[in-house]
């Protein structure tokens, strides 16, 4: 059947799951500094990660994975 090659798919799966691993690696972001406008790192980092995860998922869709 037509579709992306196996290797391409595997690479994309790895990329898709990067935000996954970052999100559960708590020691990475459980800190106050660097804060932005008084918003601790813990909060703005995870908020930004939502946007990154969405962008990666969108890119996977564009790549027809």
């Amino acid at each position, binding site marked *: *059947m037509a*579709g992306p090659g196996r290797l391409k798919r595997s690479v994309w*799966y790895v990329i*898709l*799951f990067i*935000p*996954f691993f970052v*999100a*559960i*690696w*708590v*020691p990475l972001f*459980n*800190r*106050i500094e660097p*804060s932005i*406008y*008084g*918003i*601790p790192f*813990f*909060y703005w980092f*995870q*908020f930004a*990660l*939502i*946007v990154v*995860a*969405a962008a*990666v*998922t*969108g890119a*996977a*869709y564009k790549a027809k994975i």
Partner: protein
Amino acid sequence: MNWPALTVFIILFGLVTVLGFVAARWRQADLNHLNEWGLGGRRFGTIVTWFLLGGDLYTAYTFIAVPALVFGAGAIGFFAVPYTLMLYPFVYVVYPRLWSVAHRHGYVTASDFVRGRYGSPLLALLVAVTGILATMPYIALQLVGIQVVIAAMGFAGGGLMGDLPLIVAFAILAAYTYTSGLRAPALISVVKDLLIYITVIAAITVIPAQLGGYGHIFAGIAPDKLLLAAPTDHNTGAYGAYATLALGSVLALFLYPHCITALLSSSSRGVIKRNMALLPAYSLALALLAFLGYVAVVAHVHDDPAYADYFKHYGNNFAVPALMLKYFPAWFVGVAFAAVAIGALVPAAIMSIAAANLFTRNIYKAYLAPQATPADEAKMAKLLSLIVKVGALAFILFVPTQYAINLQLLGGAWIIQTLPTVVIGLYTRWLHRWALAAGWAVGMCLSTWMVVSQQFKPTFPLHLGDWTLPGYAAFYSVIVNFIIAVLLTLAFRTARLAEAADQTVPADYEHDVT
């Protein structure tokens, strides 16, 4: 009685009621067929699915309970953020396969798939029963969301008068779900989501400004609440709890019948995949709502004598409603509260449809009436959707709310036990059906014991050697479930136990409409 709020609330409620009944004529088809009543004919495109899934996943209870948890417990409550951001890549990769095989074979429920894949009526029954058990308390909890806002508008009297608005709201919901099926929540979710976004945007711009801005709010939170407690010697503490709560919730969510129903109602694989990139918009809204928990702390709503009675009755779940009452003009309180109440109706409708689908397909048709026609199925499902809702209503009116909350927590730990059967089944049927059933049984007992032994706290302090690893009970128990399924499969294969037929072929899992 808060008349301006109540007036706006009733107008908006009236609007969605009309929509609910009009929905029966939308994309007109024969609603006496379960595929039409219970799955909207599998014809929802990207936009409708976006609203429907958004309305389904982010329930009113979520919008009340997540900020309430942050309000009471601080940073740990933010686990909802990694949870929703991990959810979409996971669903993107895994669940189009379920859509494909279900579309190919006309499966309406996960249990239909399990029956076809493993040729095992027993395993299918276990999956169906787990789904129904996990969904029932979830429906009841949606009512708690409505109850809180109705009380906040002045119906706090208790007794029949206090409960009457809730009964009326639910009767209306039951009526249009009965007539329109999944089309009703699909159409109403558009209004619900717009109201939610308007409310969230208003809340995060207007209220923090009056309290001195975001930095000031974070500065007003106790340092021990602001971050997770660091691990101590031989104890991973809040780190492991935070990560496993998020991860376990990701693995569990799309096993819930109401999520599968919304997923299967979409018109193609592409619709699902596009939505996994677009749905994080709701995650942003949820993260902002979680932050409102801190806003409520700094606003000292808890110490305000005007809300003391409500807090006594509804606990921290009153934090966000109190914040709105305090800072919004009365008419806009009506908009915000309508968003919560309508936000409860959409998932309650989908959940009752999903539970009805399961019962009809996998218990009624499978065991009680094998000769049932699609019309019989639709009739049964409609009736069941009513029974399910009356049951949920009675539960909330006559049983303490805490029971519903505890049962919903247990439901999450139960539904994840179907993970090896359903999700691994999408890739391989190497796991033996009886091994899966045994793993399920152990997982159900273990997760129940873990949750009950902690007095209905979601985290369980696992002792490994001289380490203590507090983590989500659902996550731990499903690992044990999986290990048992693997070990027994090896044993059964060695003993050459009988294999059953597989209805599906590998190409079914990649199938798409052209």
